[in-house]
């Protein structure tokens, strides 16, 4: 690849790195290290809130594999991707002010923290911390490998060097700057993702000879490409609709997303955040996948889905502009990885170490442990990325649905339903995760839908029956 396109990419990585380091100065100033490092001192404004929410959610799949699948499946896949529009408003509206108020009362910093205060149960903490560590660690490793491979394919330098560049760029500022550094760099990278999408969309439409021309080319090749049913007609309404659960409303239960719903400053920031995130997520998802479909007529015959977007950018744009557009998937990966890294480290430090190992730890100890744990996890991920174990790859397949099935009812019903108890929460988490893994492995798509739907229903039954069966124990007796 030519230097003209590589240069903007590296300049972009350098800028993100410097801003991340700059944000780190807040950490040394703050009077509450934990609140600052893991939650940015609950001070996010609307714009940064929206951007960090959208970019944490939007990952390699939104910019690489998603458009690649749309390239092969046609408009039906764009229809499916639009189920994600709901994440823009649903997460912030449903967790909303109630979550913000409750987590302030409890002074919680993480999702596990919230569950611990709500259910007052060691087992809830252990189960939730374990699911976060297992699923998010593997999800992070997969994205990390994706980031290194992307640099490798764009620049032609070796995988090992690419991995080092990527790791250095992300790891240092997350370790030093914590949540605020993550959120601020997410803001910058969100703008890049937005602009990259816009530039590429315009260029691809022009290269394809206008929308009408593209659509008639697609229809001439295979009429199914312009129907909602996919290239071979196999995308059924039930299956596509079930993505409203997996990538729409279910996203509310992803810990790295939900934690953002307690990080904003005030109600105004929430209101602005809802509007901005709906716009940005809708814009990126709609257009990025459309680009994949349009690309089929511009550059036919691409075999590996993940390369559709990079190849298109280089084919239809001048070198420097391609560099800016290609910074978008890079940004998508970096913004997901940095949040996951901090999430895993907060689980270890706040939820395990401070809860059970050293509840009396002083500020300096916490500081040293938080930064140390973040760095250590990063290094473990790098080592694993050199030769990814099969277990990690296997676990990553379950990560999104598994976390949603585990957390959706303990979080939502724990927040709104007074009679929910720890028995319900434990039953719900176990039922959700185990049934999801069993369905995915042995009986995918029960009732023609993604298996996350059935698992969530089972988890709901488990929560309600677990809570009601042990009703007496749950009534609060202490009065403060």
């Amino acid at each position, binding site marked *: 690849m030519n230097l003209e396109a590589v240069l903007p990419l590296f300049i972009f990585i350098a800028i993100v790195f410097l801003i991340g380091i700059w944000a780190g100065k807040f950490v040394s100033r703050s009077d509450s290290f934990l609140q600052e490092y893991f939650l940015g001192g609950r001070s996010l404004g609307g714009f940064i809130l929206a951007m960090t929410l959208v970019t944490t959610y939007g990952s390699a799949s939104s910019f690489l594999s998603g458009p690649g699948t749309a390239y092969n499946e046609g408009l039906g896949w764009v229809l499916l991707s639009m189920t994600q529009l709901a994440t823009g408003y649903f997460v912030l509206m449903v967790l909303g002010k109630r979550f913000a108020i409750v987590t302030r009362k409890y002074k919680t910093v993480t999702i596990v923290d919230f569950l611990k205060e709500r259910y007052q149960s060691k087992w809830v903490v252990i189960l939730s911390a374990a699911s976060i560590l297992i699923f998010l660690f593997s999800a992070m490793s997969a994205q990390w490998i994706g980031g290194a491979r992307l640099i490798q394919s764009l620049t032609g330098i070796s995988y090992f060097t690419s991995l080092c560049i990527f790791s250095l760029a992300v790891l240092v500022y997350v370790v030093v700057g914590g949540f605020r550094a993550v959120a601020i760099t997410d803001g910058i990278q969100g703008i890049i993702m937005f602009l990259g999408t816009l530039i590429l969309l315009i260029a691809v439409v022009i290269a394809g000879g206008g929308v009408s021309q593209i659509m008639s080319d697609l229809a001439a090749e295979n009429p199914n490409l312009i129907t909602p049913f996919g290239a071979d007609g196999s995308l059924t309404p039930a299956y596509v609709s079930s993505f409203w659960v997996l990538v729409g409303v279910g996203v509310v239960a992803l810990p790295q997303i939900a934690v953002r719903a307690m990080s904003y400053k005030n*109600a105004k920031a929430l209101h602005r955040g809802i509007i901005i995130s709906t716009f940005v997520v809708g814009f990126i998802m709609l257009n990025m996948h459309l680009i994949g479909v349009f690309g089929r007529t511009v550059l036919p015959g691409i075999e590996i889905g993940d390369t559709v977007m990079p190849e298109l950018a280089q084919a239809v744009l001048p070198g420097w502009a391609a560099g800016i557009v290609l910074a978008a998937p890079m940004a998508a990966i970096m913004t997901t990885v940095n949040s996951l890294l901090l999430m895993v480290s907060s689980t270890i430090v706040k939820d395990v170490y401070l809860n059970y190992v050293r509840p009396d730890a002083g500020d300096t100890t916490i500081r040293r442990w938080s930064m140390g744990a973040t760095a250590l996890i990063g290094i473990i991920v790098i080592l694993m990325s050199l030769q990814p174990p099969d277990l990690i790859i296997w676990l990553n397949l379950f990560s999104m649905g598994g976390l949603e099935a585990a957390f959706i009812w303990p979080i939502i019903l724990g927040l709104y339903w007074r009679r929910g108890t720890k028995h319900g929460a434990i039953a719900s988490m176990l039922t959700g995760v185990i049934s999801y893994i069993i369905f995915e492995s042995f009986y995918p798509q029960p009732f023609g839908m993604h298996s996350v739907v059935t698992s969530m229903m089972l988890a709901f039954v488990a929560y309600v029956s677990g809570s009601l069966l042990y009703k007496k124990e749950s009534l609060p007796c202490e009065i403060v």
Partner: protein
Amino acid sequence: MKEKEWNDKRYKIANREAWIGVGLVIFNFIWWFGFAYGLGSKSPESYHYIFGFPAWFFFSCILGFIVMMALTVFVVKFFFKDVSLEAEEEE
């Protein structure tokens, strides 16, 4: 969770706003599903086109996005209340 934590006047506002979120997502789903499969299920030869896109896609995905955007702005501006979120101001 302690007894008093379930009693907070602000929860009434918060609960209403959460239900608005649920309502929006149901409306969003019906709009998306209705246009996509209502107009998209006939054979591709008989499709109508709007701005170059098949009508089902234009209404479901493009107009659907614009409508949801407008609705979100509308409910946030007119139905969402600006309340304090801080713990101290509860009673």
